[in-house]
């Protein structure tokens, strides 16, 4: 991956579409790509990818472009139309995303031949020969040259656009979503062709899009674009496997895989409108970020190497990339059984939970799950080991700090009857944490309680709030308990078997509700349960606990497809895996 001098380099590119209101499509983007290298630009729709593509070809119509774009030795900014014509297609070509980019009334053959005739002086028949070759490279037959675009399917049009980008053999090829809309067979062929272009022919590729699989296969480096701002950049494998920027992590986490068990949720919507955030001073991602602090809304982060990185990867985040909200190190807890014997309930567990992440903890009854939950929230003191919340050791801080920490981490119990005092009305029960923390005035607290009741889809009228716990069903009561846990707006919720007492329908409702609230509020969550099926639908990452130890860790998909530990397999069997995957046995592996 030692690349030569960049063939295309973009420095501090700012592109503004004239308003009103003005729209800043790209805001200080810097990128380089060398010959024989593929740079992927990963971003959501609307992140400025297509604008970047247009700017690189000098066709960003009425946009105001600042910064420098260099192609080899020449500076492209400030070229006139004539100068651009000499560069376009001969040195840099584009495969645009829109299939409406083919002229509907001209045959494909003519549209492929045009640039060859104009730039390379090829005859029409020579051009056609090259066109047919390029069409073949992207999986289309020579019949396509006689077609009008309307006689091709959407995928075939995309193939034609790709072939078009190849016909003049340019140094740099910009591909805007090259693989979207292609069937898997053609897609793989396109990836193989592109790969050959980079590795064998030494072309430079700029791959714009959100097809992570294609990027993983093709790209050497990845730049992650969010609203025209580079959130992270670095070697492709590292950025795609272990993202460090909050946006990259959230984007990759919302991505479906073949066997996605998890209920997918997009990144939570921002509060501010995109245009406003565009020109605002702070981090563009601040309103959707789960780990934002006050400074994030006033200070725009620049790219910097995060802790523990060698400088190849850069992350733009004031907090230095993804932050672990809860880190437990080597937790031990034993209960005395009799006079001389003690039973280790939790025996050396370490775990880390990032902001906004859902970590599932599964295990059979008696595996130490509830003890672990109690240790994490500080209800029990550990015999050994530490629990740090945002880097603060909960055991080592003073009572005032502890109280502040407590409000950021909440526990949802298995049995709401036990958790809610029968002497309090449910309204009072939910308000109690606010009273304890002395938040706001009484009027504000009442309002807050109503907000939480409505958030968990319960009635908010006074008569309902005045009910007591025995007057409610189990499902309603668990919602009240959830409202109580959420009223302080915690950053981490530890839920201990929250659904086990509910019927399947109520459980499904509450599961969806919990997941939605978790995403909307940007909470991290530790979900403890013996029911693997439930945890798999909710958690980003799962820990399997057995006799107080973590025996296996992975995503739900990984655990389902290749469970390593016998305990995992038995939990899977209990959840009915073997009936679903009849005749499929996981590869046996030695126990860890």
């Amino acid at each position, binding site marked *: 991956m030692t690349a030569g001098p960049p063939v295309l380099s973009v420095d501090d590119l700012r592109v503004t579409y004239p308003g009103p209101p003005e729209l800043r499509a790209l805001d200080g983007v810097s990128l380089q790509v060398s010959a024989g290298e593929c740079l992927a630009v990963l971003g959501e729709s609307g992140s400025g990818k297509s604008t970047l593509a*247009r700017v690189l*070809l*000098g*066709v960003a*119509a009425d946009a105001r472009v600042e910064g420098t774009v260099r192609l080899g030795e020449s500076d492209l900014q400030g070229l006139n*139309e004539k100068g*651009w*014509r*000499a*560069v*376009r*297609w*001969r040195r840099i*070509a*584009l495969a*645009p995303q*829109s299939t*409406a*980019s*083919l*002229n*509907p*009334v*001209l*045959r494909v053959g003519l549209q492929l031949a*045009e*640039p060859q005739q*104009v*730039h390379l002086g090829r005859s029409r028949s020579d051009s056609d020969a090259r066109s*047919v070759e390029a*069409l*073949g490279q992207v*999986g*289309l*037959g*020579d*019949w*396509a040259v*006689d*077609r*009008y*675009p*309307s*006689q*091709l*399917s959407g995928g*075939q049009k995309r*193939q034609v*656009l790709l072939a*078009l980008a190849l016909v003049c053999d340019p140094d740099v090829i910009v591909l805007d979503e090259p693989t979207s809309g292609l069937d898997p067979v*053609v897609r793989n062929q396109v990836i193989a062709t592109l790969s050959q272009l980079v590795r064998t022919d030494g072309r430079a590729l700029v791959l714009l899009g959100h097809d992570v699989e294609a990027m993983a296969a093709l790209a050497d480096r990845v730049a992650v674009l969010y609203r025209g701002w580079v959130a992270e950049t670095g070697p492709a494998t590292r950025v795609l496997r272990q993202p460090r920027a909050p946006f990259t992590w959230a984007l990759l986490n919302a991505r479906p895989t073949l066997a996605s068990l998890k209920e997918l949720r997009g990144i939570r919507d921002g509060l501010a409108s995109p245009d406003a955030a565009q020109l605002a001073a702070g981090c563009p991602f601040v309103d959707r970020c789960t780990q934002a602090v006050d400074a994030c809304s006033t200070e725009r982060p620049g790219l910097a190497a995060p802790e523990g990185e060698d400088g190849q990867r850069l992350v733009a985040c004031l907090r230095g990339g993804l932050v672990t909200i809860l880190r437990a190190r080597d937790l031990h807890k034993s209960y005395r059984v009799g006079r001389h014997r003690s039973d280790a309930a939790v025996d050396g567990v370490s775990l880390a939970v990032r902001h906004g992440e859902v970590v599932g903890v599964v295990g059979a009854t008696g595996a130490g799950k509830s003890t672990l939950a109690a240790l994490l929230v500080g209800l029990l003191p550990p015999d050994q080991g530490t629990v740090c919340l945002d880097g603060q050791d909960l055991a080592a801080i003073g009572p005032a700090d502890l109280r502040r920490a407590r409000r950021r981490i909440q526990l949802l119990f298995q049995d709401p009857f036990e958790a809610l005092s029968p002497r309090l009305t449910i309204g009072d029960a939910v308000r109690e944490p606010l009273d304890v923390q002395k938040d706001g005035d009484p009027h504000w607290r009442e309002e807050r309680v109503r907000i939480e009741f409505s958030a968990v889809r319960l009635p908010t009228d006074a008569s309902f709030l005045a009910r007591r716990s025995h007057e409610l069903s189990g499902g309603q009561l668990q919602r009240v308990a959830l409202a109580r846990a959420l009223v302080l707006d915690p950053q981490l919720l530890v839920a201990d078997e929250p659904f086990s007492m509910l019927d399947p329908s109520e459980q499904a409702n509450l599961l969806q509700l919990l997941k939605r609230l978790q995403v909307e509020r940007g909470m991290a969550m530790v979900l403890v349960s013996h029911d693997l099926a439930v945890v798999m639908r909710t958690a980003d990452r799962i820990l399997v606990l057995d006799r107080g130890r973590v025996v296996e860790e992975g995503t739900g998909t990984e655990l389902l497809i290749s469970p390593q530990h016998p305990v995992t397999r038995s939990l899977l069997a209990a959840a009915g895996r073997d009936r679903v995957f009849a005749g499929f046995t996981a590869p046996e592996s030695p126990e860890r």
Partner: protein
Amino acid sequence: MTVAVVVVGLFALPRAMPGDPIDSLARSGGGEITDPRIHAQLQAYYGLNRPLVAQFFHHLANLSRGDLGFSISQRQPVGHLIAARLPWTLLLAGTALVFSTLFSFFAGIAAGWRRGSRRDQALIAVTSATAAVPVYALATVLLITLAIVWPVFPLSGARTPFVQGGTPFTTAVDVARHLALPATALTLSLAGANFLLVRSSVVSGLGQDYLVLARAKGLPERLLKHRHAGRNALLPYLTVVGIQVGFALGGAIFVESVFAYPGMGSLILEAVRARDYPVLDASLLVLAMVALTANLAVDLLYQRLDPRVESWEGVAVSRRPRPAPMTPSVDR
């Protein structure tokens, strides 16, 4: 179907006018038929006393034999009259149509391509004006300025009268000089709407993805303008031009009467004055047929030119894209 409606309509319309050909004939001779018996006799002679339906079927039978009837006022076969007049009208309308079509197309592309430029604004102002003024007023203005005030062009007719012999070249120049003013009037009146149509379809194409890509391909301006923008504007334009054949013929009738141009327009005008039913029937029918044929021709041309018109059934039979073979196939 269209033809049937046209035939019935054209038969009914002249007969719905007040007056009758016999009276007109007599008046043109300076007298008046006071004896109702003579009137009836003449009516019987021309077959005008029979019920309208019977007259219609007689007319239809004649048409089917290719017989267009016999003029009451001019006492010769209608076919001969039309044969003498139609070429002039076709020349006038055709010339105007060709010039207005070409002018509108290229001016429309030029104006739309540089939208908002001086040239664009000037063209819009001029063409809007000529499109808004009635064609006979336009013709009269041209007549007064260029034939009377500055007698650059001849005042009336299609050829200088009493000129015998002359080389084909001098004849052609003579015809062209007589044609110039009427054709200009008609061209100007047709060009206005066409220009605006081409211009607006070019403008709406300006930001389209295919033009962005064509520009990104580094194609020279003329290719972008004429091949990519022009071809797309051409197609909707063609349909309008087909419809315009009818307008051109209608306009020609007015223009001919202003310039006393010996075409179908003058013939029809004379026939209206004389209530000459056979002439009216036949000449209007001929003009309608010309317009319909032109429309059909344009439709056929459009199908050839626009790949998108092709029916899906047609694609299924003959040119459905085959699944992409992994090796280039040879069955083109």
